[in-house]
């Protein structure tokens, strides 16, 4: 008896030691019999995308009450893709994933191992939805006839926002060159984010590349995952960096060096910087219901939008969107598709565009949508500033290796700004790092 008890105790000890290895199930059933899909996602909390995404999840849960329910688990923005990589290695991916972490993940894991559901099996039965999607994106997402992912069929170029109380341009900024803009700015400053992935600075830099002959081609040619841009000593890039250095040194806000996104946004939201570069998802921050973020007399009603100098806007037409990992049980995959289909439905697209801007080229916009959009002056103006002449190019970070975008650029940028590195030296160091990465 004593021996048996000791044996049981020892076994229990061993098992308890391994209890931490158990994993949480991302597909369960709730008390109402609905299939619950638990998805980690970054559009939660203070993330700017949460304002639209979380209510959208609620709308889906209401529509599919008793059948499917989506629950969102919070993951920090910059941890999301890394977490998906880790879960993929363990074959524990959630039933819905947005985007792919990197080219290696796509080309060496996802595609060759067929670790995704072919979305065509559902899309072929929904011709209305198929008609809304963008052909170029569908083609980009198709591998051996299988459709990997679906993205919002919305074009919403990132541009710039300026504070009209501080700066009144003599003509639309899209019609100016960077030099003209610098001249007109006078003592006004530009809000730049230079740490982390230097997102807002990258937007300005991309537009400086796009206005040069061969610039748009450079950005588009390196979109494919097996052909990332590493030739940073290319004259087009060196010219753009030279211009960026001058712009930041001349008109960068005082807190530019080391500024995170919050620092750049704060400079703009406090009447300290006259301009910031970002996508239309920022428009919500200028609505009256976001006034708690403003200070020093800032009023979102005074914000205007325009294309970047040279009439440039940034959007990646060839991105990866929502996909369903192959480890998802078939009944949960049906639910996951229902959620994707719901997000891409005409009504949801209109709500999405009202919240975060953009146009859906294949959507017949309803009268209610157009009326609602006209009520939001900034959104209306943003839409008006993008025209058929606008040069829409992908973000530089879509064409560059991940570690250059996430680490190296921001690490070297302070040295470019304070003049320790010349543009040529900066580009050389970036190229060395990029080649090192791609070995």
């Amino acid at each position, binding site marked *: 008896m004593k021996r048996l008890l*000791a*044996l049981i*105790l*020892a076994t229990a*000890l*061993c098992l*308890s*030691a*391994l209890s931490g290895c158990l994993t949480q199930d991302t597909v369960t059933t709730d008390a109402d019999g609905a299939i619950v899909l638990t998805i980690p996602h970054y559009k939660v909390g203070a993330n700017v995308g949460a304002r639209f995404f979380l209510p959208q999840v609620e709308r889906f849960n209401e529509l599919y009450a008793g059948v499917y329910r989506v629950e969102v688990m919070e993951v920090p923005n910059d941890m999301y893709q*890394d977490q998906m*990589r880790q879960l993929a*290695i363990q074959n524990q991916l959630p039933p819905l994933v947005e985007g792919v972490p*990197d080219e*290696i*993940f796509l080309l*060496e*894991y996802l595609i060759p191992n067929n670790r995704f559901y072919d979305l065509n099996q559902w899309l072929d039965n929904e011709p209305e939805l198929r008609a809304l999607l963008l052909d170029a994106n569908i083609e980009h997402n198709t591998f051996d006839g299988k459709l990997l992912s679906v993205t919002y069929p919305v074009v919403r170029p990132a541009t710039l926002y300026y504070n009209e109380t501080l700066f009144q341009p003599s003509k639309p900024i899209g019609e100016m060159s960077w030099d003209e803009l610098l001249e007109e700015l006078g003592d006004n400053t530009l809000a730049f984010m*230079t*740490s982390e992935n230097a997102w807002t600075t990258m937007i300005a830099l991309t537009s400086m590349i796009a206005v040069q002959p061969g610039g748009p081609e450079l950005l588009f040619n390196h979109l494919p995952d097996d052909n990332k841009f590493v030739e940073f000593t290319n004259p087009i890039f060196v010219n753009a960096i030279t211009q960026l250095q001058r712009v930041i040194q001349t008109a960068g806000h*005082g*807190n530019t*060096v*080391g500024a995170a996104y919050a620092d750049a946004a704060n400079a703009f939201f406090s009447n300290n910087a006259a301009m910031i570069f970002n996508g239309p998802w920022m428009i919500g921050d200028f609505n009256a219901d976001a006034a708690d973020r403003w200070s020093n007399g800032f009023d979102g009603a005074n914000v205007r939008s325009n294309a970047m100098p040279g009439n440039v806007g940034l959007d990646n037409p060839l991105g990866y969107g929502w996909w369903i990992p192959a480890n998802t049980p078939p009944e949960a995959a049906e639910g996951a598709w229902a959620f994707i289909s719901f997000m891409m439905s005409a009504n949801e697209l209109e709500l999405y565009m009202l919240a975060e801007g953009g146009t859906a080229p294949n959507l017949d916009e309803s009268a209610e949508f157009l009326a609602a959009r006209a009520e939001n002056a900034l959104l209306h103006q943003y839409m008006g500033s993008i025209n058929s002449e606008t040069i829409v190019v992908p973000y530089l970070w879509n064409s560059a*290796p*991940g*570690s250059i975008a*996430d*680490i190296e650029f*921001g*690490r*070297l*940028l*302070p*040295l470019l700004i*304070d003049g*320790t*590195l010349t543009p040529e030296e900066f580009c050389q*160091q970036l190229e060395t790092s990029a080649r*090192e*990465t791609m*070995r």
Partner: protein
Amino acid sequence: MKKLERRNLPWIYLFLLPTILIFALFYCWPIIQVVGTSFTRWNGFSRPAFIGIDNYTRLFNMSSFMVALRNIALWSLIAMTFHVWFGVLVALVFFKQPPGWKIARAAFMVPMVISSAAWAMIYRFIFNNEFGILNNIIRIFNPDFNVNWFFQSPASFWAITFTWLFYAVIISLVVLADLMAIPSEIHEAARIDGAGGWQTLRMIDMPLCRFSIGTSIIMSITSRISMFEAIALTSRGGPGNTTMSLSIILVRGISDRNFGVANATAVVMFVMGIAVLLIINRLFRMNESVY
């Protein structure tokens, strides 16, 4: 071994099994894997391909790696010459039990309850050029003062150093415990023999605390080798390579999916840690009895 003890041996091992299992599974096996894969090209998805010492050659040819080694050497020197001795000094002050020493000890321990990540963020605010308390105090005397501590070279090196320089709580506690363990008779005998405070400190306290000081130096230097949060959450190794460290290179290897390079970096860190352990053990004669 007595018969009774021998009979209990299987049970002893059985109850030790969970610990052995955890140690083997979560310590030994990963270390073996890290060493093994450091000789391979591996992106986490494909099968690791043996490439000999290529990853190590690549590391030693990287300028950032050499800067990281130099930074660690400098930080270790600062840790040995200032950080540890600051902790020892605080322990000596507490040992004398001046008025209010308990409150001071509690205050000194406050940083221990703050995670190193939060600590790094606090320093990010302290050193902020625009609204940081440090620059604003300096500007009282010099209104034109402008230094982006974490983003200017070489200021960022010193800013990073400052995040741990005075954070010597563990050292103080370890040394204080050793000081308190010194039999009071020894101090009394010294006093009777006419030894002054300085002589007691030099001839009795310091030699008798040599284990704890040696341990503190080992802890401090190995912390410098593995230091990550303070750098990753502030300067991220920059500007340029000014605050580069091996842990930053390791994490960059992981994000680039160059697990071979990342693991080679980890092996270098491991070897450095073992070397520090052996050298300090020898220097402080830590395998010899104190009393």
